[in-house]
């Protein structure tokens, strides 16, 4: 036998090792700073969900003690949880940031977009988002997307080129070598940037716990009036539920992901602290979106199609 077998290193506390969270944090900060150095008008997509909260936290760290050289953009579906909107506005005020809002309701009111029969508004976000990017001339748009979320995202780049219609063409994406990101784009095009590309759901939660980041309350167990639709607990509300045959009940639930009220399901949980939430996730046998996002279940190719159209 001529093979060499690596010596087993028990305990990897070598002096120059980084923990996995430190490595991911350092990489994300590097991405934020690259964009600050190479783009004119970057913006962070901020929904008040945990991934965008972590993005904002990383951006604050990347430029401290100076202010973030970016503004924030929220695509408001009109069906957002009030707790999340309240968190959003408080955070913006606390850090003295500038918030742009692209409103789906506004587009419906103007007759530009039509309400879908199923009441779901997530697919309606694309047009307000792309028009806001065009009108504000944003050239880099930070999104909280992670490559572990869904199969179509596994091939997403950290710097993802979009044309003037925000469309994503898998064949136009550039190879990303070493940590040399290529942000060049033609006028009217922009780049979507995903600093959390290499993070998993668990990494995000562990980082929130380590950094002591505050989250909207709906991420923790609370009593809520919910009803069952398509196997998910949805919040009763004016957005379109419950319908006939759907009964409301009071349950102890929390949200694992925060999106539109019409398609974001709560899970039964009694986890009231971050520690308990992390334990629950580590033990969970369902991926984050599969359990709680109706829009990812649409079809095997649904996400791919929507990305091509300019979705997140």
């Amino acid at each position: 036998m001529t093979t060499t077998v690596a010596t087993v290193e028990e305990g990897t506390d070598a002096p120059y090792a980084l923990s996995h969270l430190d490595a991911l944090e350092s990489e994300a900060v590097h991405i934020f700073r690259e964009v600050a150095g190479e783009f004119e008008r970057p913006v962070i997509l901020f929904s008040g969900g945990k991934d965008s909260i972590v993005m904002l936290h990383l951006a604050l760290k990347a430029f401290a003690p100076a202010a973030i050289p970016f503004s924030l953009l929220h695509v408001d579906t009109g069906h957002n949880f009030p707790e999340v909107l309240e968190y959003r506005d408080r955070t913006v005020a606390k850090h003295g940031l500038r918030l742009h809002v692209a409103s789906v309701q506004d587009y419906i009111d103007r007759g530009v977009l039509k309400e879908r029969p199923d009441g779901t508004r997530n697919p309606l976000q694309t047009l307000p988002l792309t028009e806001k990017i065009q009108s504000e001339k944003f050239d880099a748009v930070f999104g909280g997307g992670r490559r572990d979320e869904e199969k179509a995202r596994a091939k997403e780049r950290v710097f993802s080129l979009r044309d003037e219609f925000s469309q994503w063409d898998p064949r136009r994406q550039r190879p990303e070598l070493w940590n040399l990101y290529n942000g060049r784009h033609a006028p009217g095009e922009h780049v979507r940037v995903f600093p959390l590309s290499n993070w998993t759901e668990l990494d995000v939660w562990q980082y929130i716990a380590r950094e002591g980041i505050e989250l909207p309350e709906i991420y923790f167990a609370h009593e809520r009036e919910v009803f069952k639709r398509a196997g998910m607990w949805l919040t009763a509300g004016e957005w379109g539920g419950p319908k006939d045959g759907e009964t409301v009940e009071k349950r102890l639930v929390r949200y694992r992901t925060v999106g539109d009220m019409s398609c974001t399901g709560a899970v039964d949980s009694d986890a009231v602290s971050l520690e308990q939430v992390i334990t629950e996730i580590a033990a969970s046998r369902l991926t984050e979106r599969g359990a709680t996002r109706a829009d990812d279940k649409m079809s095997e190719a649904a996400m791919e199609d929507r990305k091509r159209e300019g979705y997140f």
Partner: protein
Amino acid sequence: MSTTTTEELSATTLLRFATAGSVDDGKSTLVGRLLHDSKSILTDQLEAVERASASRGQEAPDLALLTDGLRAEREQGITIDVAYRYFATPRRRFILADTPGHVQYTRNMVTGASTAELTVILVDARNGVVEQTRRHAAIAALLRVPHVVLAVNKMDLVDYQESVFAAIAEEFTAYALELGVPEITAIPISALAGDNVVDPSANMDWYGGPTFLEHLETVPVTHDLSHCHARLPVQYVIRPQTAEHPDYRGYAGQIAAGSFRVGESVTVLPSGRTSKISGIDLLGEPVDIAWTTQSVTVLLEDDIDISRGDLIVPAKDAPPTTQDIEATVCHVADAPLTVGHRVLLKHGTRTVKAIVKDIPSRLTLDDLSLHPHPGQLVANDIGRVKIRTAEPLPVDSYADSRRTGSFILIDPNDGTTLTAGMVGESFASPEPVKDEADDDGWDF
């Protein structure tokens, strides 16, 4: 995952690794098996695979389906790009760059290997070392991936014979060592049956080494930094100009190699000015020492003119600056790279205009033969190029520093990434075939 506590999970290290191998070698099955047996596949993902397998009339769930992403691939049954997979064990977090192994996808393998600490090369035990295996080994050697694993798959189809494995391991190891691959580990596996992937194989008690996953969990991810040249490419200058911080000037960047200490004398390139490090901010926390790949902000004693694109280095260990770069490149764009091509070159945080002066040779990966003066390089070609830059650049040899010895070429017209470049000699050992072009002394 279900048995790990949060405490165990919060203090692990991260390993980035890449796979190379073709559909026929069972690569997708290996990756699927790894995810499945390490319990990284969750119920709904597995259900989706079972549904898809059943709808195609397959009896058992096809683990390869776990890793097929885009519709085009599902329709054609191929893998067309680098896909990134994530999994964790109590001991370590993994990022896998999963790359297809066909000839025309050299660029994807180069992309995956560029950030990898370890590369897995898969062979079919029935076929042994084939042309493609040699190509994969050459790419791992060119990209200077520190660890290479030879996974001899389909051992179940050769009756788990030790002699078959030993012969393949020996042939491959001899070849890879000649290329200068620093560390090779051969493991006999059956991805389909699960032997030695996650669980030790009862069928191969003659094998005393680690399973594939054990090896991934224990391969060292730390480096001895004492022999590295410390390098900090400046990304951004932080100047709050607030009442609280009226005079703060911080140079932000990710340490590309080595380590820096407070009090150290440093030189800023390309200007050549010197100063001392007066402080290091590690994302809001002052530290005395910082090392690769930490993102930091460095403060200097003197107020000197520094901007994005500059490189901070130890005063006693500065690289030479040059406008003439000779490098091994992999061409990654569909349009060819030609002599006289005007490009942009991105090195670290600096992008400069450049021109392709010469393409001395093209390298055939199958037999490592050199073809002098091909005139151009097409997609997936690997070759030597000479580049003249508009401004002097402080480049290291890729052998010394993967981050400051690498660069990309960009098309100034449409922004396409054209070429991946590695400064200096191609292989760690003397090149198998001597390049006839005269050597410009880039071998430092």
